[in-house]
């Protein structure tokens, strides 16, 4: 007999006429993250998604991977009981017998002492009402497992019984997912991935709302080391666990930085470099069919992220720039990075290209006219073009061991 998992879709269920589309995308994503597991099948029946897997499959792995699919609200490993063609009485005895088996297992595994049953009758034609089902199940369990007691306030186990057409389900665990919307339901964006704490979180948040991502990474080799690049690839592998395989366009920004440093005022270095990053990213985005840029900036965190600086940065491009972290505090961003598992990798101390030519007193309130004047000393078009053309693409697959 296969193991079965009930997957609940959160917000996806609310999307009116688009519901079938969202659900289809969700099923596709779940199939994708479980494709390495043999014999797994994913199907959709009235508002729920069921994953069936052979008993030999790794249960924890299935739960872990499916719970990370955006659009999944929660997942429960469940016991399925076929009640088709049975009378209500027979059906309840069959479900009760199964419930006893489940509880006996839990007593052995976890030393469970108290329980509570919650029943739900999704099939309203089933002649017994939910509270009555719950009471009957409780009676079955008390009779079958003498050591157990009912505790409706703080039970060791809350057993859910769900009676549907032809099938009933018993489960006790609910593993929460991240919610959000299925990947692929909200366009494609290009994230500027630095290797720091913020940008992976920003990428996660956009993917969480259904956006497919590509990434661009700027480095300044030989001013930055190859280890910094390895770190970015490690981060991308972690992100890909949520947002699918990721293409990283890596661009050496040193030629641009050299020109800026040799021709423009020192205090403007940072903002000028940021504007070039945006331009180069925009060019790559347009070539790759990305409709927006995504950065990990948050208001006021560093000199290049003051309101004034953000305005000047934005003025360099015409594509919309998404900054999902804009109003978050650093501690909350760090919390989120820990939650999604990128924090430990992000804090490895390798220099990224932003810190190579860090002016002593960067201008925090840049004026666009002044910046444009400085840029007139450079051949921005040619530099942008050359940098974008030099981009190297690396495809990063999701880490398979987590």
């Amino acid at each position, binding site marked *: 007999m296969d193991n079965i998992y009930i997957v609940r879709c959160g917000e996806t269920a609310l999307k009116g006429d688009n519901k079938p589309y969202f659900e289809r995308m969700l099923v596709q994503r779940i199939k994708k993250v479980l494709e390495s597991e043999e014999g797994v099948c994913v199907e959709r029946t009235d508002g729920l998604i069921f994953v069936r897997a052979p008993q030999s499959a790794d249960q924890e792995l299935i739960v872990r991977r499916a719970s990370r699919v955006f659009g999944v609200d929660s997942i429960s490993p469940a016991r399925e009981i076929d009640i088709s063609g049975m009378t209500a009485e027979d059906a309840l005895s069959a479900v009760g017998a199964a419930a006893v088996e489940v509880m006996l297992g839990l007593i052995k595994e976890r030393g469970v002492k108290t329980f509570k049953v919650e029943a739900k009758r999704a099939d309203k034609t089933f002649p017994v009402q939910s509270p009555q089902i719950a009471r009957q199940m409780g009676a079955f369990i008390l009779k079958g497992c003498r050591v157990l007691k009912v505790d409706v306030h703080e039970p060791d186990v809350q057993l859910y019984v769900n009676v549907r057409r032809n099938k009933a389900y018993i489960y006790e665990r609910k593993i929460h997912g991240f919610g959000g919307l299925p990947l692929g339901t909200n366009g494609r964006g290009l994230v500027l991935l630095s290797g720091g704490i913020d940008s992976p979180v920003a990428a996660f948040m956009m993917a969480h709302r259904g956006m497919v991502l590509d990434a661009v990474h700027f480095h300044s*080799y*030989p*001013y*930055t*080391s190859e280890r910094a690049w390895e770190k970015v690839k490690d981060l991308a592998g972690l992100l890909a666990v949520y947002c699918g395989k990721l293409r990283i366009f890596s661009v050496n920004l040193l030629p641009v930085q050299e020109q800026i*440093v*040799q021709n423009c005022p020192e205090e403007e270095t940072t903002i000028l470099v940021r504007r070039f990053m945006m331009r180069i990213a925009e060019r790559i985005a347009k070539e790759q069919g990305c409709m927006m840029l995504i950065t990990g900036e948050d208001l006021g965190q560093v000199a290049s992220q003051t309101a004034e600086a953000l305005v000047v940065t934005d003025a360099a491009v015409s594509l919309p720039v998404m900054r999902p972290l804009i109003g978050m505090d650093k501690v909350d961003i760090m919390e989120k990075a820990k939650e999604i598992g990128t924090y430990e990798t992000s804090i490895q101390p*390798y220099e990224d290209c932003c810190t190579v*030519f860090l002016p002593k007193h960067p201008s925090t309130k840049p004026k666009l006219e002044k910046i444009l004047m400085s840029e007139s000393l450079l051949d921005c078009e040619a530099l942008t073009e050359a940098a974008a053309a030099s981009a190297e693409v690396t495809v990063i697959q999701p880490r398979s061991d987590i």
Partner: protein
Amino acid sequence: MFVYLDNSATTRVCEEAARAAQSAMTETFGNPSSLHRLGLEAEKLLRRSRAVIADTLGARDEEIWFTSCGTESDNTAIAGVWESRRKTGKRVITTAVEHPAVLAPCRRLQELGADVIYLPVKRDGTFDMDAFREALTPDTILVSVMHVNNETGAVMPVAEIKQAMLEVGSSALLHTDAVQSYGKLKIDAGELGADLLSVSGHKIHAPKGIGALYVRKGVHIPPLILGGGQEKGRRSGTESLPLIAAFAAAAEKVCGDIPARAEAMRTAKNFLKARVLEYVPDAVVNSPEDSVCSVLNMSFPGCRGEVLLHMLEEKDIYVSTASACSSHSKEHRSHVLSAMGLSPELIDGALRFSFCAENTPEQMDYAAYELEKAVARQRRLMKAFKK
């Protein structure tokens, strides 16, 4: 042209060592503790290997304990002396420029109540004998001074240190970390006067994962690693015979030919130094005048060592920075160059070149040429940036 100038970090394993390891893995693969014939053969190989290492250090066979690395040798020596002597005194003297394998255990001893003195060095990185004499008190139980400094190549006067200890009748034990001098200077443990001496395999063309500790006969220290009683109970764990045999093979080759090999390294070093100073006249030599043949430390003002390193790596030239300057914080600056009183600019702009006997003048020529280009490229940019 491939030019490897990071031999103080590690060396390429020589053919002799690789063959010895291969043979001990697939032929003489027995456990020296096994009672059967295969075990006996392994035990004989172990004994022969120990004799080879002992010979390279002017030691008796039973004075050599095999360990997993130089760090383990240092730890064993320092922890062992503390444990066996802490009742007779609390003072431990070392230098501010030791390898972390010595400094970290010394800091641990401090936590355990030791009075650890970190001797300053002179501006050129050499040993300050006056400061040492002053620090040497009757309750000193251990003096640990490296034979050759790994960043600058400064040679420490271990024999004179012993002499100074004898003059005042000190009963302290003398440990020396000889990881960087082994195979470059002739070592005779007796002449050096060391009671304990650490060496490592992978700096002399043996594989990583093998080291040895010389413990003078009559000196008793407790083991760090307990178990099946191998190495006469002094270092438990099944002997890593492939690594031990490889270590012996490399030591036999390298230590049997020290004058010629040292000469080759010195030639490469002097050649590189002269060329670099010719191309980059304001480069600063941080290694003392009579430093060991295998290490040359230089600073390039106005440059960042790590950036030069990456520029050279693009040209297939491999060197090392004295410090990991990935973070600009002070703690990441080289403790050795800091102890010598170098300015932050010189510390950040420092590179360490470390040689092996196989380096050639052609390689040095190429390295110096590429180094000049890298320095010029970086200075152009840094100067523009600072203007």
